[in-house]
């Protein structure tokens, strides 16, 4: 237990989030604070109103798009691999492979290496830099899909299923429900890679971030707003919208939509059916169970803290492997962009 307290004594779990004490900085705090490190742009990680924010340039751009003047008074960009000193803590961001700009945070202090994974995945994604494995002593891992029933198939295979369903129902349109940051752009890029070059129609809520991705050099092909398009023009087309829109009056303007949803939760078919999804696609921007387990082992960490999701099973797994593990309960995280 001595080792554990030595590791933990400069990290503190406060109601605002994880505090790096000697640097006076929080990682992904759930409330506005003076100094924050933000792993990526999803709403439950990138909150508005911080004083100073350290993040990758892409994450800062995403925050400016989503939060406007609430994106942090002082924005400090750090590129992947660049070490920044905060107090006597060395902070380095590494790619997390989750969404554009997403980072893991390496903290080096008092001879100990701590990695905060943020949200991550190890499957390839054409819209962001791939995950880097960072060896460490203490690994603080996410656990969104921390149950062995979650195994994500290759995303390309799910896109093939989407295109096959579309081919079988030419008179309908496919309404694909996606989270606005990351999943949306990844699905578009995967569709393009699969040869689908027809215009893709977007719900208004998705347009700004698609524009930002395009500005940052990610090619998404022709995108049109749903607003101002006649239903006839959208027959046989693929339309993207946030999940809430599939239950909204908004979708009445679409020609006989077939509701598809791309998410890791779609793996559990009974749940997908309850949500009224007709075509469930298992595409996730989070690590699946096998990746979570493999990554814990590969970091060589002696100790693991599990947070952000279903902690219990992953703690059990790590303990069985002889790794000290505990659930780190933090409030304020939700099922985002899963």
């Amino acid at each position, binding site marked *: 237990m001595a080792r554990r307290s030595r590791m933990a004594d400069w990290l503190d779990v406060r109601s605002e989030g994880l505090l790096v004490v000697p640097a006076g900085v929080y990682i992904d705090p759930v409330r506005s604070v003076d100094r924050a490190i933000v792993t990526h742009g999803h709403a439950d990680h990138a909150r508005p109103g911080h004083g100073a924010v350290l993040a990758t340039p892409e994450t800062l751009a995403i925050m400016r798009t989503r939060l406007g003047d609430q994106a942090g008074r002082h924005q400090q960009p750090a590129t992947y691999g660049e070490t920044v000193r905060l107090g006597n803590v060395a902070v380095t961001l590494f790619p997390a492979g989750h969404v554009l700009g997403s980072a893991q945070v390496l903290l080096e202090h008092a001879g100990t290496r701590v990695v905060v994974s943020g949200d991550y995945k190890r499957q390839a994604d054409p819209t962001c830099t791939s995950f880097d494995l960072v060896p460490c002593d203490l690994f603080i891992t996410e656990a969104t899909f921390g149950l062995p029933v979650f*195994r994500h198939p290759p995303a390309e295979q799910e896109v093939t299923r989407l295109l096959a369903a579309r081919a079988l129902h030419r008179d309908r349109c496919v309404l694909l429900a996606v989270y606005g940051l990351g999943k949306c752009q990844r699905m578009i890029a995967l569709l393009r890679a699969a040869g689908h070059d027809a215009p893709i129609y977007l719900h208004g809520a998705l347009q700004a971030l698609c524009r930002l991705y395009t500005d940052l050099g990610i090619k998404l092909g022709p995108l049109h707003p749903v607003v101002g398009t006649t239903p006839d023009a959208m027959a046989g087309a693929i339309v993207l919208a946030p999940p809430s829109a599939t239950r909204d009056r908004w979708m009445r303007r679409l020609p006989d939509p077939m509701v598809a949803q791309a998410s890791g939760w779609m793996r559990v078919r009974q749940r997908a059916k309850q949500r009224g999804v*007709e075509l469930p696609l298992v595409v996730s921007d989070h690590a699946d169970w096998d990746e979570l387990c493999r990554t814990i082992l590969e970091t060589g960490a002696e100790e693991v803290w599990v947070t952000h999701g*279903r902690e219990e*099973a992953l703690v059990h*797994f790590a303990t069985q492997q002889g790794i000290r593990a505990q659930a780190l309960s933090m409030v304020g995280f939700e099922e985002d962009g899963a």
Partner: protein
Amino acid sequence: MNRFARLLEALVFTPGRNGKLRLLEHYFAVTGDPERGYALAALTGTLSLATAKPAVIRALVAERVDPVLFDLSYDFVGDLAETVALIWPEAERKTEAVADSTALDLTEVITTLQRSSRTEVARLLGNWLDRLDATGRHALLKLITGGLRVGVSARLAKTALANWSGHDLTEIEELWHAQTVPYEALFAWLEHRGNRPAADLALSFRPLMLANPLEDRDVTTLDATQYRAEWKWDGIRIQVVGHGDTARLYSRTGDEIGATFPDVRDTIRFHAVLDGELLVLDGDRVAAFADLQQRLNRKTVSPKLMRERPAHVRLYDILVEDGDDLRSAPFDVRRTRLERWFARIQPERMDLSPLIPFRDWAELVALRDSARARAIEGLMLKRADGAYIAGRPVGPWWKWKRDPLTADAVLMYAQRGHGKRSSFYSDFTFGAWRQGALVPIGKAYFGFTDVELHQLDRWVREHTLRSYGPVREVEPSLVLEVAFDSIQRSNRHKSGLAMRFPRIHRIRWDKPAQEADRLESLERLIDA
């Protein structure tokens, strides 16, 4: 197996009948023999296979998965077959393409299950699960636990075959029951590669003759002397096919339901094809429809249930007598044959639906309106010279329901619909007053126009008190005039009442909710 598994999955998720048809047609077109024949049999529930108990499946998974991880997963997923399908270890990640090439095929699975014992199934299952991907495993486990519920009736499958092949549905239905799994001769004929398969038609389903509603037509435009009248019974339509010591019972859609009603089926010793209504008796009287519902959709029936809710057939037509096809004969001739046949055979658990004598329409109207006996929905009018024609020809048969009952009820809850209606609140629960509080009395999701649906949807969104997932509780202030065919006692409902065929008749935007009906006044409408 994987192609079949993906078809099953798509069928589960596709809400509409047309969507399901398209999936089936596509499957029959791209799948070869004998696999598609086995799939057809599995979908329509015509296979008898060795099964495995959940305990066997749990034991298999316990050999492979940490019990703590399994329990946490089962808690989250909530369904054993699905949990096992998802958690089953995979040596390496399988893409669908890889899984397709190494997986076992449906034919192997089904033919093996047909000749295996339960113990053998338990031994085979582990190896089979190793060879499939998650979707395949789920399908296999559903098949093996007998829970393949995907909403495909025999009728729907046959319609898909007809659409896909261009053959006539009636012809397929006639042939159907003479064919055997895996239906290779049938598929050869459907694909125009082979002759129409020879069919021993003795036990096959004869497509039914259906009636048109009389509602929009003035009965006095019909010639009363040309029609015969019978009561219209509130049961389920049934075709009884007896062929010596074998018998079949067919539902309206041609599904064989003999196993659900062995009390009727096992008394049959005659050679005849009869048309009638399946009812449940309570002593000498017809029981409430709710009692019949208790007996529907069961694969096996307990002796207790058969004792408490005995099935009975009320006959009204004869199609074949001792091999003599009577369908082209006029109704009057068939009726005489039916009565004589009945007197001669005196079949158990059956009686005749009486003809109702009448002089003119006025007399019949009076009879129709006074008939409030339980299980009578109205009248059937049948042309005396009409042949028995499959389908719904206009003219020879009319159904003439008595005027519906109505009640003013208060909208209580609204739920989002499915498919095209998924963005609309289109399923409505309404209630009546009892001691100053509303008690739900029924649910309706049709009867309104598209314009009214938009109005109701907007009203619900603007008057929501609370949301529970897809359900909204609304302010109790909108009165709906509800029409229904009858109302019966039911101990399964909080109100103690069950409505038959409730639908929204009118939206009473004008009526204050306090003036809606009270439960007592609905109780007075219960059938004698």
